[in-house]
């Protein structure tokens, strides 16, 4: 997994509350293998009309924000379906950080697995950031995970992130390697649990 320490890039505001993973990646793209890349499918039905033409008024289609690597979103970003491919689509498009007042929990968990930072700010701070970007679209934001700050010109905002997710992102740690060091504890738990809850294993169907 890629580390995330600090990023300076243009940021695209997406002022849509409850922007769910069905919007981030519509279901019809769930047959596409990861290796094929999902960047073009990101926000497909919001970025393009039914005939496949770009909607020029959608923020990510505006020239200043086409190459954004940061998204500033609204409440409950990434709610809904557990599809991790919604995170793949963001990553494949080039997004490395989403800033929002709150996130769908499964989405936030999937994001960290792929090195995508989910930075939580207040509703007011998200609105302020969107306003700043609206005034001057090509303005870059700096997101510093060590300091937990977002800087926009001379303004600075603190963001919140679960300390465990922060550590994992800073180090690019992989959970599976980590769990490997607990293998003895897992085996001991399994054996004790079998005795304690014999009914928990599936019975043989008659």
């Amino acid at each position: 997994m890629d580390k995330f320490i600090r990023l300076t890039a243009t940021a695209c505001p997406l002022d849509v509350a409850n922007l769910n993973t069905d919007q981030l990646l519509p279901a019809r793209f769930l047959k596409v293998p990861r290796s094929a890349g999902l960047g073009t499918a990101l926000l497909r039905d919001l970025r393009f009309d039914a005939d496949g033409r770009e909607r020029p008024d959608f923020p990510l289609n505006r020239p200043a924000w086409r190459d954004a690597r940061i998204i500033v979103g609204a409440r409950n970003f990434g709610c809904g379906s557990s599809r991790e491919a919604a995170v793949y689509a963001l990553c494949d498009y080039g997004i490395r950080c989403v800033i929002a007042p709150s996130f769908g929990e499964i989405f936030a968990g999937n994001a960290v697995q792929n090195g995508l930072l989910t930075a939580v700010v207040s509703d007011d701070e998200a609105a302020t950031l969107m306003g700043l970007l609206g005034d001057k679209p090509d303005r870059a934001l700096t997101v510093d995970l060590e300091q937990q700050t977002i800087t926009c010109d001379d303004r600075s905002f603190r963001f919140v992130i679960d300390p465990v997710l922060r550590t994992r992102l800073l180090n690019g740690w992989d959970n599976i390697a980590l769990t490997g060091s607990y293998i003895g504890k897992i085996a001991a738990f399994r054996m004790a649990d079998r005795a304690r809850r014999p009914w928990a294993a599936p019975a043989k169907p008659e």
Partner: protein
Amino acid sequence: MSEPLTLFDKLWAAHEIVRRDDGEALLWVDRHYVHEGSFNAFSQLKARGARVAEPGLTFAVADHYVPTRGSRRVIDNPEIARMVRTLEENTAEHGIKLFGLDDPRQGIVHVVGPEQGLSLPGLLLVCGDSHTSTHGALGAFAFGIGASEVAHVLMTHTLWQRKPKCMRITVNGHLAAGIAAKDIVLAIIGSIGADGATGHAIEFTGPAIRALSMEGRLTLCNMSIEAGARSGMVAPDETTSEYVKGRPYSPKGTAFEQAVEAWSALTTDDGAKFDREVELDAAAIAPIVTWGTSPQDALPIDASVPDPADEPDTARAKYLREALDYMGLMPGTRLTNITIDRIFIGSCTNARIEDLRAAAAVLAGRVSKVPGLVSPGSSAVKRQAEEEGLDRTFRDAGLEWGESGCSMCVGINGDVVAPGERCASTTNRNFRGRQGPGARTHLMSPAMVAAAAVTGKLTDVRPLLSGRKV
């Protein structure tokens, strides 16, 4: 005297292998369900050259991508056929039991798990699907996970999690006739919002919840995720053990007696503290429908869609305008004046036998004014419905009687609502494009969908039930 604990505290503690100083805990997984959509996780396994740690605790079902209309012996769409084949290959390679298309136990994973006795009280259960919260209805800790977590569970049968907060939702009193579990959960989401329970596990309790059948509880817990909660649960009781008893994979004989004894301790102790409490009065709940593009846009059927001009909060007014525009609705329209183009009865939310009976009770002797599809929650539900003659009722009403799968709820298998069409649906998400690009979805109970079919518009089902046995 030990500190009083919640049901959730007890379930969590029983599965904690180790807790690190930073608060993350490694949890033991009792059941892991996989489906065609789990292919990304199997790819991760392959890339690491890893094996499945506990194939005997892992069960697979073909549901997300499978056809639900016409023949399933030959799948016309090559992409869908490849997805189903990949699941067959992955499960065969790792020795995982698969309820595939040719298996009489096939169905939607969240219907099949409880039906087969695989989902039990006291278990920790995961699946790469957000509606895994469903299984909490049995008194289990069940939650949806992403592909990387699925891969982690496949390889270790454990998962790292931070313990969420706990919210208690108490539903007092008794439901009026014609009101279902779907109405309760839509009323809750309408009240607390689509992120109202984010960061929490929900325990549903109170007389109205106790009075629900297991099917009703499954519907309720299923939609916990639509309020932002990864898991929802109901403490096991006699309804639960009666439901579990005698199912193919559930404990037998003395093992069952021991299990019931253990399950009886799975209740919230008097005086246990919750991080948040919400109370509702069941008697005040009317049939609910959604009008917008989030399940929180839920209103009683006698209401009107909101008018953004009356909304003082500018952000909220913007949201209302965009939702109304997508849904093709004029501000202030009475819900009962909204005409529909089709109906769908199906999904892990509302396609169990009780749901089909409730819809059939309304449709019996009546004709649907719009086309529609009825997709039973499992192949077993389908057989039972046919034994009871419910399929005839649906067919006689002019509806299509289909096969079991996720179908038109998620629209992956090609069963979609056409752009601009309006669908009355028993499903769980009215997101933009959820049932197909440009599709407009109104969520409601099976009886309310049947009522909409009969009149061709959103309708209060209660008058249609007069003089009928329900």
